[in-house]
């Protein structure tokens, strides 16, 4: 039996997170949503998602704090990360590649299908 992919969404805009959940659920992808990096760390420890959809500017520690934390654990460093951000144009490729970021999506231009495609691309 094929395992249903499981994605953790880290997004502090609840309504945008709802929209991601709606889109991914429609594509048969199981999701959980947390609003900040600290909750994400707890959730990742418990549930080991197949990938993360991660906003950059979060309440409290930002995405890079979370990415640092993930990279410091051998078993978590390989979790693929899709950054969804309004600051895509300010992120340099070389800065984020080291953090296991598979793709950066610009919230202002992405289509719902882009999120599904990005997730499917990184799933095992």
């Amino acid at each position: 039996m094929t395992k249903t992919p499981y994605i953790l969404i880290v997004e502090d805009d609840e309504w945008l997170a709802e929209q991601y959940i709606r889109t991914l659920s429609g594509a048969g992808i199981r999701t959980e949503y947390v609003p900040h990096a600290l909750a994400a760390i707890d959730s990742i420890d418990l549930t080991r998602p197949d990938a993360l959809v991660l906003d950059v500017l979060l309440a409290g520690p930002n995405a890079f704090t979370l990415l640092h934390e993930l990279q410091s654990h051998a078993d978590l460093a390989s979790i693929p990360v899709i950054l969804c951000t309004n600051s895509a144009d300010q992120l340099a490729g070389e800065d984020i590649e080291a953090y296991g970021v598979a793709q950066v999506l610009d919230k202002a231009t992405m289509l719902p299908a882009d999120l599904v495609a990005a997730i499917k691309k990184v799933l095992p």
Partner: protein
Amino acid sequence: MKGNKGQLAVKRDGLLPGDLSFLITASHELKAPLALVRQLSLALELADVDADEKARMLRQIVLVSERALRLTTDLSRSSRLEGSLFELEPLNPQQICEEVAHELTPLYKACGREIQVSSHYRPILGVANRDLLRRIMLNFGDNALHYGSAQLPVELHVGTRTKSGTIRMGVRDYGPAVPVDVWRRLQAHLGTDMQALHARPQSSGLGLYIAGQFATVMHGKIGATRHRDGATFYVDILASTQLSLL
């Protein structure tokens, strides 16, 4: 035309350097609500959603658009701030708080949050421009929305008259404490530049900057107090002497 710092003023040969920074910040701050409206609209267009879900999404589009429009109105007010254009009048700060809470309640409800006004039994009058003061408090209320637990409401409150003849109106939220270093940076720049509060990304650095400008026009000032469980953003306005003369 010469513009004050932070105002949108167009010279014959283009924008002033400070204005360009203002423009960039403004466009960045409007990007988030526009991106959300776009995503929701695309979902309505592309996805098969039931009637209840559709109604909820349409409501979200309306509320997010209204929030963005409040920012655009603040921007246009800010671009033509002249003291003489904004008449100061005696007003009841408690009433302003109630109007602001009433206006923001639909947005708070839609987010599963609550906004309330702490009651104040003694009549107290301030001197301010009603529209600008409302906009400052709306700005604080918008900023507070995304912080704190759903169990604890955001509170608008009016303090007592101080010895220095001012009244403090504040918006208290209960959320994650802002780290000390970030808070010190905020305190150093609050109301004087557009630096975003990065531990609270949905708080509008631009909105606070504009609120600071509005307060200055009314001979007041804005400030913030850090709590272990959140923050209070406040504006100090002049107290009216009318009641004390009675």
